[in-house]
Structures are given as structure tokens and as C-alpha cells.
């Protein structure tokens, strides 16, 4: 296999597989947060802040995959 082809394929695979986990995680996280807000609307600001921090921590996994994909492709 040509090295360029291998790099392109590797980037596609890395990004594609890498976002599966964070996707599931984000879905669960926001779903649970919305459930909690639905049960207790007064606590919405607190839940939202915590939710954003949780989103940031989950989100970074997908971003790791994207960055590693870029590093594979462009170096």
C-alpha cells in the first residue's frame, strides 16, 4: 500500500472509531442532565454548569482522536 493512501485511511479510521465512544457518552450525559432538569427545574443553572464541565471532559476524547488523525495525516 502506498504510504499516502495508508495515511489517509488511517486518519479516517482513527477519527471514525474515535468519536464513537464520546458520542455515546455525550448522549448519555446530556440526556441525564435534561432528565434531572425536568425533575427539578430550579436546579437548572447548577446542573447546566456541571453538565458543561462533563461535556468538556468527554469532548476532549473525540478531540484527541481528531488531533492524532491530523498528526498522522500531515506529518
Amino acid at each position, binding site marked *: 500500500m502506498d504510504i499516502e493512501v495508508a495515511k489517509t485511511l488511517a486518519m479516517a479510521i482513527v477519527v471514525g472509531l474515535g468519536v464513537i465512544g464520546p458520542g455515546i457518552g455525550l448522549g448519555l450525559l446530556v440526556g441525564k442532565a435534561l432528565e434531572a432538569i425536568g425533575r427539578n427545574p430550579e436546579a437548572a443553572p447548577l446542573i447546566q454548569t456541571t453538565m458543561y464541565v462533563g461535556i468538556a471532559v468527554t469532548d476532549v476524547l473525540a478531540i484527541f482522536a481528531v488531533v492524532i488523525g491530523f498528526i498522522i495525516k*500531515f506529518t
Partner: protein
Amino acid sequence: MESGLHISLAAERVGSLFGLPITNTVVTSWLVIVFLLLGAIIVGGRLKLLPGKIQNAVEMLFEYLFGHVEQTLGSEKLAKRYFPLIATIFVFILTANMLDFLPIFGTFTLVEGGEHVPLFHAVSTDLNTTLALAIISFVAIELSGIFTLGVLKYGSKFVNVHGGAMGFIVGLLELIGNLARLVSFSFRLFGAIFAGEVLLMVIGSFVPLLLPVPLMAFEMFIGLLQAGIFAILTLAFIKIAIAEPHTSTSSAQVAAH
């Protein structure tokens, strides 16, 4: 890339000063600093008791930020101590991310060895910048823990000899987690902004009309979000760092759960 898209992972060199290379992201960071300084001089130079429109807006922004810091840390004294750092991180990253959408980016180029090098490049797309910010944040977190609790007490969070084998492993994990913050802080900001820039470039080459506009608005939102996340996470980690460590009984309870 072969198809003519100009994507570079590293910042490009535009000149040198006393042998030190000056990259285009350094030039842009100084632009951001000049922008912030001008803003500070214009707004701060004519403070009035009855605020005008600009002063009102800036005061509202900072009162909101201060309220958030105070709510998280739980006391005004602590909030006054840590607010300058948190607000500086937020304002700097926010300004840097917002300036990325000025038309001067990518239009002004220097010709270096027959190659066009853009004079300005988005600050957060250089891993060096985000790593520097991450190191500042990391050092601030650890030092605030050390100065609040003392070296021994703060160190006992990581080298836990009272909680048995389980407590020791938990302490080691905490140490690794602290060090991993450097990576996650810098990669999060770098990855989000860099991926956004590549996305805009790719979309711009496919559909140059209209479609990039809503995506640009989305990227501006991402820039705001990343600035907020960086500041909020620094704040949250400082809060964790200055909290009293668990006593041996409570950490055993935590491990048992």
C-alpha cells in the same frame, strides 16, 4: 495538501529576533495583547460614577464572571484572590478566538523563499500557545494547593500512606490525573480551534458561497465555549486543589463504596 488546501500543523516562521524564530502565531498573540491593552486603556481610562454604555457592558461582563467565581469557590475572599487569573485566561482566549474571524487572517502574506507565508495565524492553532496556557494554569492550580494547605498536607493527597494499599493506588491515580491535565488542557483548545479552521477551509473549497457563514457563527460559539471551558476547568481544579484532603477513615469509606 495536494489539492491546494493550505493546512499546516505547525506555525510558520515569519522572521527572527536575536536568533529566536518568530512565528506568525506569535505575531498574532501580540496583536491580541495590543487589542486588549487598547481596550483596557480606552475603557479603564475614563471611569465614571455614572457609567456610559461601554463601561456598563464591560462591568456587566466582569460582574457576571465574578459572581460565577464567587459562587463556585464559596467565599468572596477566595474569589478576589483567584478572579484575576481566571478572568485573564478567559478574556485572552476569548479575544484570540474572536480575532480569528477578522479578514486580515490569511490575506496578508510575507514572501519567504518563493513561498507565501500568512502574517497572521489563529493563536489557538499553535500547540505551543495552548501548552503555555496549560502550564500557567497547571502551575497556578498546584501552587494554590501548596500555599493553602502546605506542602505535606497537599502532598498527602498524592502519596497516601494511611489508607492502605487501596488509598496508595488512589493517590497515585490522582497524581497521574493531575499530570494528564497538561495534555487535556492544551489538546482540547488546540484540537477544537484547529479542527474548526480545517472544517471551514474544506467547506470553503466545496461550497464557497453562503454555507460557510452559519458554520463560522458556529465556530465563534465554539471559540466562546472553549474559552469558558478553559477558565471554568481551571477554577474547578483550583477548588479541588485547595479543598482539605480526606482523612484516613473517609478515604477508606470512599474506597469501599
